Structures are given as C-alpha cells and as structure tokens.
C-alpha cells in the first residue's frame, strides 16, 4: 500500500450559530494516500466541503488531529499555514477565484510572486503551465474575456505551478457543462498523475467518481463508505 500523505484522526468540526451548535464533521478517521485521486462524495450539507477545508488547513478542527507529511497542521499558526500552503498545496475552486484585474499569465504567476521567484523564471514557468492546459494563446486575456472552461483551466494552471504535493479541488466542474467537465477532469487528473501528485476532489456529481482511485462517501458529517477502485479506466 502506498504511504499516506494526510492522516485524519477523529476529526470534528462544530459550528456555533448563536446558541445552536451544528456539527459539520463528526469524528472522521481517514488516510489520503500519496499519488491517489481521492473523491469526497456526498450530498450538499454532508460535510464534504468542510472536510476539504480541514484537510487543506483553511479551517481548524474543533478537535482531532490532521497530520500532513508528519506535521500537525491543526497546530500551525496563520503564518506557518501560509508558507505550508505555498509549498505543498494547490487549489481549484468551483468559482475559479481568479483575480479579475490580472491577465491569465499574471494569475498563474501570482503564487510564484509570493514565493519570490525571479521574474524571468516565473514567466517561463507560467507560460509552460498555460501551454500544458492549452491556453498559451490566451495568456494576455483577462478572466472576463474568457469562457468558464478557459477560466477554470487558468485556475488549474495556477494550482499546479508550484509543483504542490496535493491539489484540492472543490466542485471544480460545478459551473461547467458536461463536455467541458470531462475535458477538465481529463486535464486535472492527467496533470496530477504525470508527477505523482495527490488529488482530492469534492463533488456531488457521480460522473466524476469515475476518475477516482478511491471514493469516500460522506453523510451527515460521517464517512458512510469507502470504495476502492483498483484500475482506472480511461474515458
């Protein structure tokens, strides 16, 4: 069995809304393996997005341990988390989250700017990444001049530019049509497999599950089942 890159131990997340407490994630134990495509599947309100945020260090658990590469990210300070994300993690969001005033190329370069990569090197790397997602001719367009699919490609390029160990994707195809969805999934899983990167996808779309090595089904903040898929079929 491949070694695990993230381990969750009895992780709970409880939101407080006034006097009411809402348990979003209740006692989850889970291992994410190095290099796998793991799909967190569930209906809305099942706690899958919260779980993703916890895995990525965007939120702190109420209790439990989250160990990423032997490091307890639930104990990290904000500053630590920032450099941790910079080094190990990439994100793809449902709503792309590109900066509207920057061009595609600049959006892809942004993580490298925060990492202090010299300007020539980061331009080259960003251009290479845009080529990999098939958008080299759109490098100098702003997000609003591009289709949803194109915008999501830019955000995928941005997620992968830092060579992260894990890429988290939160409903990456939620705003896209079926054809584009398949293109996007081919692209993102292809990129991840190429460099043996781990991919964690949150979705409620059963079609996406076909791309996964493992499917974790969540319901009411708890793991309902884990399905192992030994071989990955090409679509």
């Amino acid at each position, binding site marked *: 069995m491949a070694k695990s890159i993230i381990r969750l131990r009895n992780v709970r997340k409880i939101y407080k809304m006034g006097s009411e407490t809402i348990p979003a994630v209740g006692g989850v134990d889970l291992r994410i393996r190095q290099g796998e495509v793991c799909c967190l599947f569930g209906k809305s309100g099942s706690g899958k997005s919260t779980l993703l945020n916890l895995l990525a260090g*965007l939120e702190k658990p109420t209790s439990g341990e989250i160990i990423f590469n032997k490091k307890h990210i639930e104990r990290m300070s904000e*500053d630590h988390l920032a450099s941790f994300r910079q080094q190990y993690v990439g994100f793809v969001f449902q709503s792309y989250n590109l900066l509207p*005033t920057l061009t595609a190329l600049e959006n892809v370069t942004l993580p490298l700017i925060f990492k202090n990569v010299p300007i020539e090197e980061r331009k080259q790397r960003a251009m290479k990444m845009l080529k990999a997602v098939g958008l080299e001719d759109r490098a100098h367009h702003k997000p609003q001049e591009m289709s949803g699919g194109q915008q999501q490609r830019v955000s995928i390029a941005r997620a992968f530019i830092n060579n992260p160990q894990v890429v988290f994707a939160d409903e990456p195809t939620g705003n896209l049509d079926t054809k584009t969805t398949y293109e996007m999934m081919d692209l993102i899983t292809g990129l991840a497999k190429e460099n043996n990167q781990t991919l964690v996808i949150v979705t409620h779309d059963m079609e996406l599950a076909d791309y996964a090595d493992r499917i974790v089904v969540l319901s009411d903040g708890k793991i309902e089942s884990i399905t192992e898929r030994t071989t990955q079929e090409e679509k």
Partner: protein
Amino acid sequence: MSIKDLLDMALRNLLKRKLRTFLTILGVVIGTTSIVVMVSIGLGMNQTFANQLSEWGSLQVIDVYSQNSNMYWGGNDEESTFEGEAPKLDDAAIAEFKLMDSVEAVSPVVDMYLKMQFDKYVADASIRGIEPAAMEALGFKVEQGRYLNGEDGKAIVLGADVMFYDPKLSWEMVYSTEPPEVYPLDETVEVSYDWNLGTRDADKSIKSTKFEVVGITPSGGMDGWSVYMPIAEAKKIQEAQLEWQEEMWGSSSSSSQKDKEYDRVMVKVDNMDDVRVIQQSIKDMGFRASSLTDQLDAMNETTKMLRVVLGAIGAISLVVAAIGITNTMVMAIYERTREIGIMKVIGASLRDIKLLFLTEAAFIGFGGGILGALFSLIMSKIINYFAMSQGGGGFSSYIPVWLYVGSIGFATVIGILSGYLPAQRAMKLSALSAIKTE
C-alpha cells in the same frame, strides 16, 4: 514578495481606482500645502527680522564692554554673574579674543563726538576709531569709494547721512533751509575737537587734523550717521583733546584712558552658528557682551507662539487627509476581501498582505507630499508676489530645502500610519470566509 513586485502591485491597485486615489491624494496635497505654507510664513517672518536687523550691523559681530563701562546697552544682564575684580578690556584682552576659534576679526572701538569741516561747511560727527584693516570684516558697508585698509593713515569713511551745514547760520536757519550739496569723496576734510570750528570763535590754539575721505557708507541705519577712521588717529586726537582739557580746566584726566582700556571691542565671528558660543565664552571671561543675535532671539521668541499656531492650523488639514487615507484603505478592503482571500489561499504570507496595503497607503502619502510640495512652491511665490506689491511689510513666505524634503517625508509617514489599521485588518481576514464572499 520582492520590493519591486510589491511596489508594482500596489501601484496597479491604486491606478485601478483612479478617481478615488486622486481624491485621496488631493486631500494629502491640501494638508501638506497648508502645513508648508503656514510654516513658511513663520520662517519668512524670522527672515524679515534678520534682514531688518542686519541693516543695523552684522549679525556675526559681538560688542564687548568692560564690566564698569557705562556704554553697555545689551538688554537684560542676568547671565552676568561674574564675581571678583573685573578684567580690563585692553590690548591683552583683544589678543585673547583673537586666539578664539571662529573669530575672524577683532577691533577696539573709540567713540568720540567731534566737529568736521569741509569747505565752508561743518558737521557734527560721531567718530568711530576702528582697526582699519578689519573694517570690511566687521560688517560695515561702503557704497562709494573703498573700505579703510591696513595702510591707511589719515583716511576716513564718511556716513552718507552725516549732515553738513553752514556754521555761520543760526540753528533755526539751518533747519529751515535745504542742506547744502556736499560731496567730499576723495577730498580733504578737517577734524577737530574744537566745537567752534569754522566760526569766528574758533580756538586758534587747537590744531585740526586733515583726513582724506576714501569712502562713503550707504544711507540709513547706524552706519549712515558715523564717521570711521583708523583707531591710531582717533587715539591721537583723543589724547590731544585730553591734554587740552587739562590745560583749560586743570582736571585730571579720567584714568581709563591712561590705562589704555577700551570702551568697546567688536568681535567678528566667521559664522552665525558660533556667535552664541563665542559670546558666552567672552562673558565667562568677565566681560559684558551683546550682539544683534540677542535681538533676533528675542524677536523669534515672541513670534514662536504665532508660528506654533500657524503650524497647528496646517496640521489639522493633514489630520483630515490622514483620516481620508484610512477611509479609502478600509473601503478598499471591503471591495477586495475576496482578492485578499485568494492571495492568502495561494500562498501570500500575512506580511505580504500587510505590506501591500501599507505600500498603497504610503504611495498616497508620498504622491500627495510631492504634489503638495510643488503646490506650496507656487503658493509661496504668489504670497511673496502680493507681499511685495504691498510694500513688503514683514509678511513673506520662505521655504528652505529641508521643509520640502521634510514635508514629503512627513506625508509619507502619515500615509503609512493611516494605512496601518486597515493593513492590520486585511491581514486578519480569514482566507476561507474571504473566498466565500461572492
């Protein structure tokens, strides 16, 4: 994040909202201008004083008197705590003054009132016997002809306002008629202690001394009423006068002359900054000393309050501008919440976020400071133009270089301070909730 990227990104963010950035900068421009102009008026006032005082002599000259001199007029004398026997203001003391650092020239002064005759006219002359070589250094002015120099013997520089009159006329006549046109430059005048010089009552036993007029001072101020001659000649006349007085009235001469003590010694310091120091060390030696710098200090002290008030009025508008910057930056955070969140998620450190907002605020301050300095320059010119057209009257604006540099620096610091709170706030935004903001 490198400084270049930081500046680049901050500038782009500001240019994205041109109107708002412009309006915020405008506030800083007004604030900076009001401070600079207000301060410049205060400084202009000081400069006008200094100019007015310098008409009365050099600001770098200290007048030294002995403790028992009755000529001392230097204001309050609280510092004169010298006890014991008063030192003599003699040649030995002068030699000591000459050895002090920053002392450029020293001259004893013999003051006398004598009669002067030119052609058929006479004048009452306030004679100042000085070291001829030091005349120029001591800050006296000559408009026509030349200064006295070390080789001069019987030469004088005549005050432009010294009034000649016909001694045969009665006083009423002198004052009711036009003064005669007398222009004795390069001519010879006679100087005497005989107060009846040029009249029928003139004392034949008194020999007058002939002097060549080598220069004429400008009109106005104290210089215009004086007649300068080499001190050696002045002493000769003084001694002759004393002997004559003894013969006439048999009175024993005042001891001070015999002891070769001077009434007054002028000390020229080679720069303004050291005047106070030298003046104090002369006082510490047991002499009394005064300079026009005392007057300047006193004047500056009186206007200090006014300058503080002017500065405060200017400062208020800069405070308003600072609030404007804070407001703009806080609004920018609301607008850019999502952007901040995205940057945090993709690896911007807390420091990066904070620096970005501080840099933007600093840019507003810096830009406002530069434009404000430029605008102040224009305002200052306008003020001086109107002040001149109304005859000067002591109201003017003066902006030294340090005020320009200081105001730009100050505006930048104000920008950074105003941006601090918003930057702190941006830094603390939770990445996740920021992203969720649609």
